[in-house]
């Protein structure tokens, strides 16, 4: 458990209130090297596990010769499917009951290259690494499907539940005076948190402690409890700091089961650090996608029909959907619409969630297509978007709660200087640089799950906030301190926040950009309850100095309690606590609806996603919105693309801490620049292996790739979206960046690149 205290604050006192620009309260620990990430613990007797992975993409392991590895210095165990202790299957995050078949994290039957097949555990990391190289594996290899483009992959399976249709999309398209049709593609992309995955597992009897970076402590703890057949309460999962996740650290993974099993078999704590190369196959990132978009429009650019057919790759064993119709179906008003999607099984690790799964590639398709339509009919790209503005959710047929997209276009265009754009492609130039301006919009839904939090007022007048929720850099520690400080009426320095430990009150997944809203809501509720109790104490306790006032209520401000009628100095919280003999006031509150307030549903709420509301549950359609304006400079000879500057205007509703929200937006935008220009998992068609499984070949943006970024908040508090008025932040920024850049590149060069990333070979 990590307690983060608010200190080293600079700037304005108002920064501490919700909405203030307080610096990260977990910052001092991070910048001094004292923040303890999961793999930095050293339980007594800890040993090291290294994974052995499949060299083939399809087939089966015939046998494993572990003799040499077992004899190597320091080796304690070579774990294979033959000697591993059995593990039970677990309930999944949709609450699907587990099968009776055992769960086997070490595979015998191989469906992708890089699948775990054995693990070597030794006294030291170096010994385990060396011995892992001595494990001989004999395979029977079968033909593999390397990826979406493999001719053997075919068209895949249609997913009827992804179909979205209204009107007569095909009929209207056939009759439309303007029709365009293009295919857009995104490659396999990886999360690449700079902290690789891994864990330390320690058993004491039937109690398990796991140090592991986690976006979802309670969800992962439940899986571990079920895998190893122990009560949920017996798992303590600790994750006070997470070195980035971007969707990849929300679920328990095979390597977790392997390490915990090894610790059980050896009776010693086991550390398993997934190597950087293994992070490309120990879990999946964004699957490769392709989509065909047909737009039908009038001659003046008004949409009459959108027809979309898309597909994403998935693994051989599981269906992972990257919903390609998610933005297509809500961004523009159209009377006729059709979106259908297939999944195509290939020999890959199961793809996962990577920042804005669905919205991201979906926006790439529609936001490029609408740009193409703008050129086709000769309208400014901003104008065509406003012309087809959706006044209500065209799919759900519900009003938007808030949609500050017009404001975003206006503010962004103004700050960017969009009016200086010459409409014709390849018409702006400086020396050898072709200059292009591009625009695209993005959106991300507001998801909602009930939360829970504990707030304590202590005898010394300080406040504690506790949740098993996590902070992977979104700023949870900080905004919760601000929330509690404001709700109770204490200076933010008086608040300590404890996060990242399964022994604390429950929390749902920090994913889907839902967490800040739900956890501030729960902390706010608990803090108000604690404050009410404090005031009640001050009014009613015989020893309270306020007892004789007969007041109905009191004011708590800056840690001091006073009467609204009294102009005196007031009494500090600590003094009230002391005089009334109270050591603490404690309020544990959840935001569950009445019908879920029972033990079973409470547990389900925090360990599955089955209680998460969709953005259109209720009377409104709830989404965040953004627009990106980009200037690119393309070398006329070489086709190298540089993003020269960007202005983004974003509507995330109310920002709890603009300083931190801006950082998250920019982080998403930067990941979007990487997606547009650099990132691509390259699979060897011969053997299905990810060839660029390292940070020198899978290119993520470096500092020199990123210009100054301007972000503008155009949001207003949206209390339909959340109690405190915030909407989605974390995943919004990336959505729309890649199409804005692709559109700018077209404007600069006259070359339309419809498959990411936009590399020089596609431009020259």
């Amino acid at each position, binding site marked *: 458990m990590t307690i983060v205290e608010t200190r080293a604050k600079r700037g304005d006192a108002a920064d501490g209130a919700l909405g203030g620009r307080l610096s990260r309260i977990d910052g001092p620990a991070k910048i001094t090297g004292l923040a303890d990430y999961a793999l930095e613990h050293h339980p007594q007797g800890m040993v090291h596990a290294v994974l052995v992975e499949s060299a083939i993409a399809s087939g*089966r392991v015939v046998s494993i010769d572990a003799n040499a590895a077992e004899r190597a210095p320091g080796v304690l165990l070579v774990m294979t499917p033959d000697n591993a202790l059995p593990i039970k299957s677990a309930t999944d995050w949709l609450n699907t009951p587990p099968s009776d078949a055992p769960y086997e994290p070490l595979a015998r039957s191989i469906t992708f290259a890089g699948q775990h097949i054995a693990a070597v555990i030794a006294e030291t990391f170096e010994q385990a690494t*060396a011995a892992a190289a001595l494990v*001989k594996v004999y395979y029977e290899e079968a033909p593999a499907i390397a990826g979406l483009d493999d001719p053997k992959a075919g068209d895949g399976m249609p997913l009827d539940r992804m179909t979205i249709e209204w009107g007569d999309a095909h009929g209207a398209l056939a009759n439309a005076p303007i029709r365009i049709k293009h295919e857009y593609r995104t490659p396999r992309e990886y999360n*690449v948190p*700079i902290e690789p995955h891994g864990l330390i597992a320690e058993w004491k009897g039937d109690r398990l402690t796991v140090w592991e970076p986690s976006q979802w402590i309670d969800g992962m703890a439940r899986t571990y409890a079920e895998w190893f057949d122990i009560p949920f309460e017996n798992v303590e999962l600790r994750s006070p700091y997470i070195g980035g996740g971007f969707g990849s650290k929300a679920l328990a993974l095979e390597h977790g089961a392997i390490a915990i099993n090894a610790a059980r078999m050896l009776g010693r704590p086991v550390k398993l650090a997934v190597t950087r190369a293994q992070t490309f196959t120990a879990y999946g990132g964004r699957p490769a996608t392709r989509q065909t978009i047909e737009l039908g429009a009038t001659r003046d650019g008004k949409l009459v029909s959108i027809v979309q057919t898309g597909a994403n790759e998935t693994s051989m064993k599981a269906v992972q959907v990257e919903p390609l119709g998610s933005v297509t179906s809500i961004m523009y008003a159209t009377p006729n619409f059709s979106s259908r999607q297939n999944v195509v099984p290939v020999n890959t690790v199961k793809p996962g969630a990577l920042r804005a799964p669905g919205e991201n590639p979906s926006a790439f398709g529609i936001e490029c297509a609408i740009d193409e339509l703008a050129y086709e009919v000769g309208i400014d790209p901003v104008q065509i978007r406003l012309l087809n503005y959706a006044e209500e959710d065209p799919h759900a047929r519900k009003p938007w709660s808030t949609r500050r997209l017009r404001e975003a276009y206006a503010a962004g265009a103004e700050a960017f200087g969009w009016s200086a754009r010459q409409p014709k492609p390849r018409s702006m130039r400086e020396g050898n640089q072709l200059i292009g301006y591009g625009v695209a919009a993005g959106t991300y839904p507001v998801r909602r799950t009930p939360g829970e939090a504990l707030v304590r007022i202590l005898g010394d007048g300080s406040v504690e906030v506790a949740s098993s929720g996590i902070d992977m850099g979104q700023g949870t520690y900080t905004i919760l301190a601000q929330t509690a400080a404001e709700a109770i009426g204490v200076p933010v320095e008086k608040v300590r926040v404890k996060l990242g430990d399964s022994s604390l009150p429950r929390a749902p997944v920090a994913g889907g950009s839902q967490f800040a809203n739900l956890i501030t809501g729960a902390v706010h509720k608990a803090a108000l309850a604690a404050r009410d109790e404090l005031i009640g104490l001050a009014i009613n306790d015989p020893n309270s100095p306020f007892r004789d006032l007969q007041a109905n209520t009191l004011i708590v401000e800056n840690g001091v309690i006073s009467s609204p009628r009294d102009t005196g100095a007031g009494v500090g919280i600590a003094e009230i606590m002391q005089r009334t003999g109270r050591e603490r006031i404690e309020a544990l509150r959840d935001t569950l609806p009445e019908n879920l307030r029972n033990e079973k549903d409470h547990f389900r709420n925090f360990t599955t996603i089955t209680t998460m509301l969709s953005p259109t549950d209720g009377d409104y359609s709830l989404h965040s919105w953004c627009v990106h304006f980009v200037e690119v400079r393309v070398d006329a000879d070489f086709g190298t693309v540089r993003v020269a500057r960007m202005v983004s205007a974003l509507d995330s509703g109310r920002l709890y801490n603009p300083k931190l929200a801006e*950082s998250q937006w*920019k982080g998403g935008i930067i990941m979007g620049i990487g997606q547009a220009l650099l990132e691509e998992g390259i699979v060897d068609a011969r053997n299905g292996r990810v060839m660029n499984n390292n940070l020198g070949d899978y290119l993520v943006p*470096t500092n020199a790739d990123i210009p100054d970024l301007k972000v503008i908040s155009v949001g207003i508090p949206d209390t339909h979206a959340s109690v405190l008025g915030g909407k989605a932040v974390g995943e919004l920024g990336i959505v729309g960046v890649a199409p804005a850049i692709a559109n700018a590149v077209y404007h600069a060069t006259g070359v339309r690149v419809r498959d990411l990333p936009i590399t020089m070979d596609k431009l020259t």
Partner: protein
Amino acid sequence: MFFGLLLVERPAALGTYCHQNGVKTPMTNQISLNLDINGKSRQVTVEARVTLLDALREHLELTGTKKGCDHGQCGACTVHVDGERVLSCLTLAAQVEGSTINTIEGLSAPGDALHPVQAAFLEHDAFQCGYCTPGQIMSAVACIREGHAGSDDEIREYMSGNLCRCGAYPHIVDAVREAAKELS
């Protein structure tokens, strides 16, 4: 569907091992090192193949230096050796005996004022998850000392050996610019 038996052998191990009379030795090629880290003399006994990064993190309880790739590709493990920035994952512990090693933990003593680069990182929110941050800060201190913080573009270039997947780059540039001013 299977087409015959394919033998795929993993490559042979690179190291050599010490087997004495068939008895497995728990440790391999241990060496004792005396390292000068953050102004303190530290003794450590490790295998010869142990990197400076793993010596710090696994044997010396100095876990502020991070492992992001173990291959010299991310910069998370940046420390100073004799005042120069060095990737500790590509440096053997045995190589730096007799050198002066500085890590993030030595930049400002606990309880003391933050180093100007640390303070600027906090003020400008030049990090999110914080995992790349010790490496960024050690690089930034060296970048300024090298005289490579003269312009934003120069800072970007000389800070590009440190990846930040959270995307704190513009704020890192702000922080380095400000700290450079303060330190000049």
